[in-house]
């Protein structure tokens, strides 16, 4: 054994990200994206309170193509953060800490998030709105 074989501190350029690490980082990033989305919710409600003209003006911005895509992204991010948040609450209750369980629950979170995102688009008028209707 040479000293080269000894473990070194994680070096970012060669550090292989673990699946669970990526999910953990995503929880924080999606949380911040939802904070940004809450600004949109408040702006939208204020516009509705101000009357039809203001609502139409804000609605025009929300219905523009880039914002449509961002809002669809916000919906996906919402589901991810919700399911991964439940995963965190289960950990807080003291369950699922070992590595295999953490990997498995992480994969379940991704699966549920994709299914819920697909279902909310497919089973509601959201997909029509997203494709450009009204």
């Amino acid at each position: 054994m040479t000293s080269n074989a000894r473990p070194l501190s994680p070096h970012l350029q060669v550090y292989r990200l673990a699946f669970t690490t990526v999910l953990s980082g995503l929880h924080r990033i999606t949380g911040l994206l939802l904070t940004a989305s809450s600004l949109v919710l408040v702006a939208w409600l204020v516009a509705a309170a101000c009357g039809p003209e203001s609502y139409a003006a804000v609605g025009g911005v929300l219905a523009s193509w880039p914002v449509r895509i961002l809002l669809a992204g916000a919906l996906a991010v919402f589901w991810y953060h919700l399911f991964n948040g439940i995963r965190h609450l289960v950990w807080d209750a003291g369950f699922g800490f070992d590595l295999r369980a953490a990997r498995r629950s992480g994969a379940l979170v991704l699966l549920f998030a994709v299914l819920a995102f697909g279902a909310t688009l497919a089973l509601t008028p959201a997909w029509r709105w997203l494709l450009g209707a009204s």
Partner: protein
Amino acid sequence: MSGHGATQHWRNQRISAMALVPLGIWFVYALLAQPDLSHASVVAWLAHPWQAVLMLLFGWCALWHSAQGVQVVVDDYVPEPQHARVRLASRLLHGALALVLAAAIGVIATGGGA
């Protein structure tokens, strides 16, 4: 964050998280179940007192949880000279948003937005 208050922050973040599971699902369901998102539809939706109360609860819990989460990120990444100011700015912004949100829902629920 200093040790003082950390336990309470941790507990409060879990309380808001647990409240947001049903409230968040309600919000997405109610929003997407509207026949359309015209001004008239949204005003009619929030004119129902229970719907307005749920919207207020969802908005407040979401902003509370957001303030808690942003604070953790600020504590982790914003270094000392600016730390206190950024933290205060986030608190004030979240508080202001909560007030504006409540005012907007109040106006709509009482027919002011129609």
